[in-house]
């Protein structure tokens, strides 16, 4: 089968408007949730109270040791009937991606928080800074700065995993490529374009993350 520029030009606009919009929503929505919920989980995991810490730890372990796809199915097929919670396919996908990756970013934040030197905590105590302000003004800004590259890598990860949402009927760039291919059984152009799209975003993003890493290392 030969590459057809005509076919490529024909499908590109739809692929990169409708499909792209869904991919970006899923990625950014999932990332925002993963980054905020992950921070909340990281803080809960540091709780001194076992009845806070242990259930959260259990939840994190369960989510991490099961496939994202299983979680998406549960959210999409089980939640509506069992808990009466119904969300659109895309929202379900965002929640699934967000919660799944939150259990990983939680670990990232934990290492970032642990990496803040003890002297910073001690200076905050010596200055009688309130505990809350110590977190928001001293510890978290330093911890988050340290983990920005790791979070960036997870953002790319979420982006690359987002096509899994196709299995709960979300039509992203890749899903749309498959639909377009099915129209005339020409798979080459839509799948190539979709693949290129992921490459074109992921490679420069990885380079940016590596640059950020280097910049943070050097002060």
């Amino acid at each position, binding site marked *: 089968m030969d590459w057809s520029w005509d076919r490529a030009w024909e499908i590109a606009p739809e692929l990169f408007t409708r499909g792209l919009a869904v991919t970006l929503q899923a990625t950014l929505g999932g990332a925002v949730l993963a980054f905020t919920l992950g921070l909340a989980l990281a803080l809960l995991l540091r709780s001194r109270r076992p009845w806070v810490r242990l259930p959260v730890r259990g939840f994190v372990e369960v989510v991490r040791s099961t496939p994202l796809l299983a979680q998406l199915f549960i959210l999409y097929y089980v939640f509506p009937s069992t808990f009466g919670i119904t969300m659109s396919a895309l929202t379900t996908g965002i929640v699934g991606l967000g919660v799944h990756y939150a259990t990983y970013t939680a670990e990232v934040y934990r290492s970032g928080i642990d990496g803040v030197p003890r002297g910073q905590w*001690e200076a905050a105590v*010596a*200055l009688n800074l*309130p505990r809350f302000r110590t977190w928001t003004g001293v510890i978290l800004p330093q911890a988050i700065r340290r983990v920005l590259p790791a979070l960036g890598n997870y953002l790319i990860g979420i982006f690359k995993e987002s096509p899994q949402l196709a299995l709960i009927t979300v039509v992203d760039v890749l899903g749309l490529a498959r639909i377009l291919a099915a129209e005339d059984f020409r798979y080459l152009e839509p799948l190539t374009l979709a693949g290129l799209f992921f490459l074109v975003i992921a490679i420069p993003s990885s380079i940016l993350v590596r640059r950020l890493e280097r910049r943070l290392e050097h002060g």
Partner: protein
Amino acid sequence: MNTDETPWMIRFDKVVKRYGDNTVLRELDFHVRPGERVTLIGPSGSGKTTILRLLMTLEKVSGGLIEVDGECLTHIRRGDKRVPADEKHIRPIRRKIGMVFQQFNLFPNMNVLRNITEAPVRALGRPRAEAEAKARELLDMVGLADKALEHPSRLSGGQQQRVAIARALAMEPEILLLDEVTSALDPELVTGVQDLLRDIASSSDLTILCVTHEMGFARDISHRVLMFDQGQIVEDGPPEKIFSDPAEQRTRDFLQAVIQT
């Protein structure tokens, strides 16, 4: 009202500090008067830092109690029992204490001015403008008026330590704890910081507890020197006496060793 006012600014009463089964302080007693400047000397590991950290509430006592300005820092009464103090009890007392660390511990996510105003604004509720005016006065005093908007990492060690001193003073403490504050500095920066501290000491009525290996500085700054060994006070006296005519062999050995290095 305050008829039985205590004359002590700091009182250690049979203070015990253990790390695991390593007993660092055993039933340590000592008192410091308001405005008194006391230097703690002694071999490494003798517990000097531990004493400052206990006062700063960075560590908890394993036994005994500590009073600051007549109030118990370590315990509260509950009924007729004494229980370890909680954060709520500690805060107003800790307000009276400031500390300067060997490693400065400036906040790297804030500029110099913000390092100094953060606690007055957030812990004392001072208006930002007022805190900044005060911070600029302090920066002027420590000789860094032009560095207010600089990032700490762009300052030399000596300058960073001056900022840390200004930051501690911005909280208007009554007690200042200095733990080997020039040990991390390049040799040529030591005198500048020491001169600054000498000025601060002589122009204020701060109570100062100072740990240092610089005996000249200790002699200048302190009213009283406590020689520690293995968590106990070996000798207690004015610097003239301790440095020129120590009574104890252990003090003599220690001073001999310090002078040689």
